[in-house]
């Protein structure tokens, strides 16, 4: 079987998505394409099915929180980096045919972080996105299963946010037990 010639993923995505490609970055040999949040899933599907690209596997989905001031107007870091919003979700995709990886990144705003789900593109995204929704509080629109994954159902807050303190669970004493149980309706045992 003849393998179709490889194409440059950045050029191919630019051609189809035009202005929706917000930024392209190279770091340590890894290419990152920052795409408009609303078209992220569409772009991932394009990268998966297009001949010459065939990113057939989703390796990882990870989210990062740029809290408190490493994003938007207050960000004064490296010119080559681009951080318009507080949250970013990175899809690490892998093309087995051409043996290369690519990162597709989308930003989500602080007040209402939302992204379209990639579960329709890869079922593998199901749990990876659920984990992010649980730990980072980003809503994936159209996700088939929006329950919490790692934390208990009655947990309060999203632990991987940078403004969530790295501490312990508050010990319940008689003076604060009501306040704690207010956040944990099912844990009164």
């Amino acid at each position, binding site marked *: 079987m003849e393998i179709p010639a490889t194409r440059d993923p950045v050029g191919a995505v630019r051609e189809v998505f035009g202005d929706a490609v917000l930024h392209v970055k190279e770091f*340590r040999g890894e290419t990152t394409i920052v795409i408009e949040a609303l078209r992220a899933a569409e772009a991932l599907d394009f990268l998966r099915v297009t001949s010459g690209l065939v990113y057939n596997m989703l390796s990882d989905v990870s989210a990062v929180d740029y809290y408190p001031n490493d994003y938007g107007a207050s960000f004064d*870091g490296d010119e080559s980096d681009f951080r318009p919003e507080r949250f970013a979700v990175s899809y690490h995709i892998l093309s087995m045919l051409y043996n290369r990886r690519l990162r597709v990144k989308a930003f989500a705003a602080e007040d209402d972080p939302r992204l379209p789900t990639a579960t329709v593109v890869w079922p593998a995204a199901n749990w990876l996105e659920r984990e992010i929704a649980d730990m980072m509080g980003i809503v994936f629109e159209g996700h088939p299963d929006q329950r919490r994954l790692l934390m208990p159902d009655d947990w309060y807050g999203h632990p991987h946010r940078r403004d969530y303190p*790295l501490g312990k669970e508050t010990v319940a004493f008689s003076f604060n037990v009501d306040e704690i149980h207010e956040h944990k309706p099912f844990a009164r045992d």
Partner: protein
Amino acid sequence: MAVAEQPQSIEEQRRWEGSLDQLRGLVSERAITGETMLLNMGPHHPSTHGVLRLLLELDGEQIISCLPDIGFLHTGIEKSVEDKSYEKAVPLTDRMDYLSPMSNNMAFSAAVEKLLELDVPERGQIIRVVCLELARCASHLVWLGTHAIDMGAMSVLLYAFRERERILGMFEMLSGQRMMSSYIRPGGVWRDVPDDFLPTIKQFLLDFPAKVDDYEALLTKNPIWKDRAQGVGVIEPDVALAYGMTGPALRGSGVNWDLRKAQPYSGYETYDFNVPLGEHGDVYDRYLIRIHEFRESMKILNQAVARLETVQGPYRSENNKYCPPLRSELGQSMEAVIHHFKLWTYGYDAPDDEIYNAIESPRGEIGCYIHGTGANKPRRVHFKTPSFIHISALPVVAKGYLLADMVAIIGSVDIVLGDCDR
């Protein structure tokens, strides 16, 4: 202290236990009406290999749907790492996949090295390969023993643990710890191999192939084993790819993908070994692959041990901004003392940017995403762990098989819950 109130009404009791309404859309309508049975398997079932809870919908003995419930072993490792310097985060990674801590150390260290552009000297790389392959054998031995005991072959566990004990003894020799070794660190390994390590591993390499033959004699042609394993838990290649499965679970379906070959790290491209592939994608093929991986690991270990004898030199990077100076230098060099003090109090700065690096662990691709802050602590570390991905695929793999096969399927994809929940 307030005394917990007992539930007063049936409605309240339901709210405590979780109602069927929460499962609407996740299980079939027949479960809501009570036509099929919902059965809770775990979190303390011995065959779930840890604390995994499965909510199974059964029609007779047949599995209609399966809802895995994880998070019982969630320890917040990714969050804790955000408050540690890179060097001090290594011991936390041991606790993820507790059956092959060396692979986790390697995944994290290799990612940090990529972020810092830090090179590892050749001897360090060879020691790493020895550790990784020993870890693969140790991990597969636990898998073999527990998988066999799940399927009713009781004695394999004792034989497998006998050999694993020898490997853990070697880890203790190297790092002082049998399991939570923290031996592979950013820049190389903690220390050089001790003098009595080489004779020990050579003896082990002489003995082990015959032991693998013994395991095969117990299982491979055993008719009961074949009945339980062949044609059970078939994973089609396209399903495996769509669900992102890696490692023996993917190779069992005949997809030739091993990161040691495809994207070599730590000098794996210079070793001569084969990647065993399955044909049918069933439990039996995944069993055969891991048995063959023992033999391939032996091949790599033989080559690596031979190199260990000839290649001398530093075992960790000599860039003292990132790796501690030798202890013998501390008494003579002021600079070494400064470097040592700076490393163990502050650590080192890493760029404010992101990288993703993956290695082949015994279970599959274990990836590490690190986003630095420009200072000594990471902004975000995320581990993509094979067990997490494989448990997410369990519902498709198990669908339509019998309840007793579920145990075989869980065993054959080889999950570790510490790896899954992190």
